[in-house]
Structures are given as C-alpha cells and as structure tokens.
C-alpha cells in the first residue's frame, strides 16, 4: 500500500460513492473497503494504477473489468470475480464461486482458496492461479491465457478449449470435449514458475514440476464436411476404366 489510505465503510456509504471515487482516483492512491457485506460490483471498472483492499466477503462481479492497479479481497467472492479483467491484479484470500475470471483478457487473478464451476470460462488472455480446487467446466471455451490449479479439477475441464493452457497439480476428474493432456516442455515450466511466484503464498510453494498440462486437440476448430458426390464420381470413373 502506498500513500494515505482512504477508507470506505459500506455500512455507511453507498457502493456508488465508492466506485465513483475509485474511477476518479489518480495513480498511486490507496483505498480500503470495510463492511462489504456481500455487496455486488465492488471495485469494478478501475482504470488507474491504484491499490484497493476489501476487508470481508463480496458478492457478484467484484473487480469486474479491472484495467489497472491491484484489488485484494480478504474474504470470499461470489460469481464473476474479476470478470473480463484486462490487466492489473486481483487477489482473493478465500474462495470464489462460479465464473471467476470469466472472459478475462489479461492481468492476473489469484484465488487463495477454491474456485467453483466455470473458473476461467471463455478466458481471453488472463492468467489465473487457484491455490485449491476448481469446479466443473473450468476453462470452458477458453481462448487464451493460463489457468493454474494447485489442487484438483472437477469434471469436463477445458471443454471446447481454444488456445488457452491449463496446468493442474492434482487430479482431473475428466476432460471436456477436445481437451487433451499435453507434454510439459521447458517453456511451460518457465510459465508455471513465473505464475506460481506471482501468486505468492496462495500457491503454497507448489513446484512447477508437479503439474500436468492440458490444452486443445484442435479437432473442433473446423467443421467436418463429407463429399459423397466426389467419391461417387471417382467410383464412376473407376468403373468406366475397368469396363474398357
């Protein structure tokens, strides 16, 4: 935290006044939010290089569309934590429910506890590190970025995945359509090492060498289109040749 810390008590002031202050803030400012009491859309749409600490649990879309600076939540978060994050960092000490980091385009999301279903759904470049487990359909239709899971992954991991990469240290209940295990090469160990270091204590000292990598088999990228007419034409030519 840098400079003077401005405190917003959501038991006293509205979410609107908090978010407006965050949107109006200049680089370097620091904020503390107390008594969030599960409020939705806390600290969403931040555009400057500021620090925000939320002491307590938040509702949906905390730090949604985050663009710069750091948001740290000391508690749990409901659906859509850091959805569509563009850059900067969002770090939560507790658990995040569904769709954490959904459609994130960049930056870093760190979940200290577990993350529920569809963690990293449609992610587009964000890096997500989860200290615990992730729920079913995580990284569904994930397009780009890295999902690092220090615990286990529930069913249908990486279903219909594009070019995102998934790293899991524990067990994978099942892989979704078109998601396959891939070789861990030195560059992947570098990526893992960088992300685990960035996640700090949330990663629990996990070793990059303990992870397995999953990604797209790229079999669903294009439609499979038959052409029986062409085969029939070939067969007709063969019959004609044979008949001569």
């Amino acid at each position, binding site marked *: 935290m840098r400079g003077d810390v401005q405190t917003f008590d959501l038991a006293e002031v509205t979410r609107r006044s908090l978010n407006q202050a965050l949107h109006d803030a200049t680089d370097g400012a620091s904020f503390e939010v107390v008594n969030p009491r599960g409020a939705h859309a806390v600290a969403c749409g931040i555009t400057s290089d500021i620090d925000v600490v939320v002491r307590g649990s938040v509702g949906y879309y905390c730090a949604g569309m985050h663009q710069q600076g750091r948001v740290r939540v000391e508690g749990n978060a409901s659906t859509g934590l850091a959805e569509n994050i563009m850059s900067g960092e969002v770090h939560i000490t507790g658990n995040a429910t569904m769709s954490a980091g959904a459609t994130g385009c960049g930056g870093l999301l760190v979940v200290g506890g577990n993350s529920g279903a569809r963690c990293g759904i449609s992610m*587009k470049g964000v890096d997500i590190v989860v200290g615990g487990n992730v729920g079913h359909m995580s990284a569904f239709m994930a397009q780009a970025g890295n999902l690092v899971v220090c615990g286990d992954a529930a069913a249908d991991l990486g279903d219909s995945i*594009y070019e995102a990469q998934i790293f899991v240290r524990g067990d994978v209940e099942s892989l979704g359509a078109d998601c396959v295990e891939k070789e861990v090469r030195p560059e992947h160990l570098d990526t893992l090492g960088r992300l685990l270091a960035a996640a700090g204590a949330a990663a629990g000292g996990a070793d990059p060498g303990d992870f397995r990598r999953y990604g797209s088999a790229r079999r669903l990228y294009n439609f499979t289109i038959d052409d029986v007419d062409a085969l029939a034409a070939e067969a007709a030519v063969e019959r004609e040749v044979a008949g001569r």
Partner: protein
Amino acid sequence: MTERSVGTSTGTSDDDIDPLATSDPDYWHLRESYTFDRNVIAEIRRAANTGIYRIRGWGAKRRMPTLDDLVFLGASMSRYPLEGYREACGTDVVIGEDRAERPVHLRIPVTIAGMSFGSLSAQAKEALGRGASAAGTSTTTGDGGMTAEEREHSSVLVYQYLPSRYGMNPDDLRAADAIEVVVGQGAKPGGGGMLLGQKITERVAEMRTLPTGIDQRSACRHPDWTGPDDLEIKIGELREITDWQVPIYVKVGAARPYYDTALAVKAGADAVVVDGMQGGTAATQDVFIEHVGIPTIAAIPEAVRALRELGVHRREVKLIAAGGVRSGADVAKALALGADAASIGTAALIAIGDNDPAYESEYRELGTSAGYWEDFQSGTDPAGITTQDPELSARVDPELAGRRLANYLQVLTIETQILARANGKSHVLNLEPEDLAALTVEAAAMAKVPLAGTSWVPGAD
C-alpha cells in the same frame, strides 16, 4: 416421351425448361409434392452428401403472419386526419431518461440493429454508421467488439454485450452511447453466433482472440450470469462501470415476450428489444432460422402487455421491435401495437447494396441469383457487404452506401408520418391499436386487434 420438342418453338433448349412452368400439355401429368417439393429434395440431397446441417444467413424465408396482415383504418367521420405538409407529426424517441445521465435521443423511430464487424465488412459498417447518423438514429455493434471506424462514423452507437464477449473492452463500453445486453436474437433465440473460417481474417481473429480460419461458434449463454436475478446484478455492474451515464437495453429473441419483457424490466432495463423470427443473421443453422421463435406481429403485443401491466409502457422502459421490418407501414404498425421504435437489419443491408442485381453474373457463378443470396457465412458476397475479402468489400463506397441508407431511413420515417397523420396523430408514438384492423383471423388473434369489419378479437375476453 422420347420426342422432346417442348419449347423449341420459342427457341429454348430442353435444358432450360421448367417442367412445372411450361404450357406444354406433355408435362401436365407432373405434380410436385407439397411435402417433398424440390427445395426439400435439394436439402435432403445436400445433407446426404455433406453430413452437415445447412448454415446460411438472412432470416426466416417461410410464409408466416406478418404486419402485412394488418391495415390502418385511417380517418373518418369521427377521426380527423392531419394535413401532410402543414401540420406537425413528431418522430423523436428518447430512451433512458429515467436512469441514465446521457439518455439516447433519436430523431426518427427506426434504429439499425446489431451487426458485427466480421460478419460485415468494415466498409459496410461505416456505411451503416454514416447513413444512420445522417438520419439521426443509432447503429449497433455486434459479436466481435467495436471498431474505431464504426465509433467514428456513428453519432449514436449502441454497444452490444454478448455471451461470447469477443472483443469486449471496458473502454469501448464507456465510449458507447448505450449498452445492449443480448440475451438472444430473432433468427435464433437460444443459439449463439457463427462465423466460419473464410471470414476469420487476421484482423477479425485478433479482435476476437481466436486462431485465424477456424469455424467459430459463439457461446449461446452468458458466461457469468444465468437468469433474471443475475441479470439484475449484471446490469448494476454495467451501470457502475459506466458511472450510470448511458441507457442499458436488453435484447431478446421473440420466444416468450410477455415474460421476457417483464423480467427485463425487473432486471432494470431502460429499453427492451424484441426481435421476431423474421430477424436476420449472418450465419446460423437453417433449422434454427426457420423453426425457432415467433413472428414479430405476435411478439409486440405480448411485450406491450407486460410493459402496461408494470406501468412503464411509453414511460420508463421503451420497446424496440425488430424482425422483418421493411417499410414505413411496418414501422407504423409496430408503433401502433405499442413499440417505441422499430429496428432494421436485413432491410438496411439491402439499402446499402445487398442482393444488388448489378452483380447478377457473379451470383450465377455462385449458384444463386440476386434476390436469393443468403450465403452470408461464405465470405463470397459479390456486393461486398457480408465479407472480409478486401477486393469484394472495396465495392462498397461507404459514403454513397451511407447516403442510400439515409434516403431509405427518410422514406421509412415519412411513410410512418403519412400513416400517423392519416390516423390523426401529431406524433408517431400516438399511434395505437385502435387505429388497426386485421385481415386474417391469425393476425387478429396475434395482434389482438379486431378482424376487419368486425369487432371480433379472437381469444379476447
């Protein structure tokens, strides 16, 4: 029939004969099956050859009840018409003045529906922006995000917030004049977008964070909310991120318009866009286009019923009706049924040159004809509109095409005024169901207006 002399007297070769159109008695025994007509047979053969469902653009082509099945009653002894050139007939529409710091002000009650860069060329998007801006109305982005060109050339730009979130950028969200949360569209309520590999060029791929050349199938459901309670929270987030500056619309395909509209109002929408099944698409399964959703004429009254019951009709929440709107008559009828504006997509593309007969020889090479072109997914559009091919898209002159669209929008508006004045209305939004009669029992039941010449509204208490 070994001797086929049919048509030779007119100089036509045998190959050109349409057996069902000829006057030659030799063919009178032929009877096309209503169930298995040639179109059906062609589709079965195509499916048997390829093993893949038919994908195409455009909207539903089947016959269905439409706004054409309604007529205006006009003025009579008890209703006074307004003078066409002497008495004012307002056309402006305001959206979001209840909640947004910057409500949307439209000069005309016709908007341009969401169509993406990617499905359309950059030139076509620019033309839509130029035409709409000249006419004083809005354009809308689509799946794939906002381009600098469309922002620059659209004085009022609505930013679509879609399930795929392709190209979704909070800076663009804040740069928009309104946000439209897309739940569905008329061509495919319950389906996601499609953009086939031929159109995923490097620029399109980069905007959507996808590999080039893939057959892209967009998500059909939002990734971070499900259901109306979540949507209310999502709209709250969008308002917070944009500091409550701009209106928020919710767009639904016409499926259950009464409930969908009520739930959109409950979720906090400033406008509800209801898109009937005639609504177009750049690419979707044919089975979706033709068999899912209900016609526009059936959807509008149900949406209006919900708005009236909630006490927000023509007040806090505006209704934009879309799907097969082609003329000022369609616009006026949509308004009379209770919509605040009508939205056009397919008609706008035709105005800027889609299906242009000037390219007939090229349509023929593609196995089609001007007036039938629907393969928007192929990227081979001779008119240069639904393509990313640089040579084809260069055929669209954004300034001239924009001028055509502005002209067309002007005609729609004047036609709407003509009909409003004929019914004695000094503002197009004063049109009302009482001004209408239905020509068919179906239309009477759907539009909830009396069958012409009777006071009978089928299904009314």
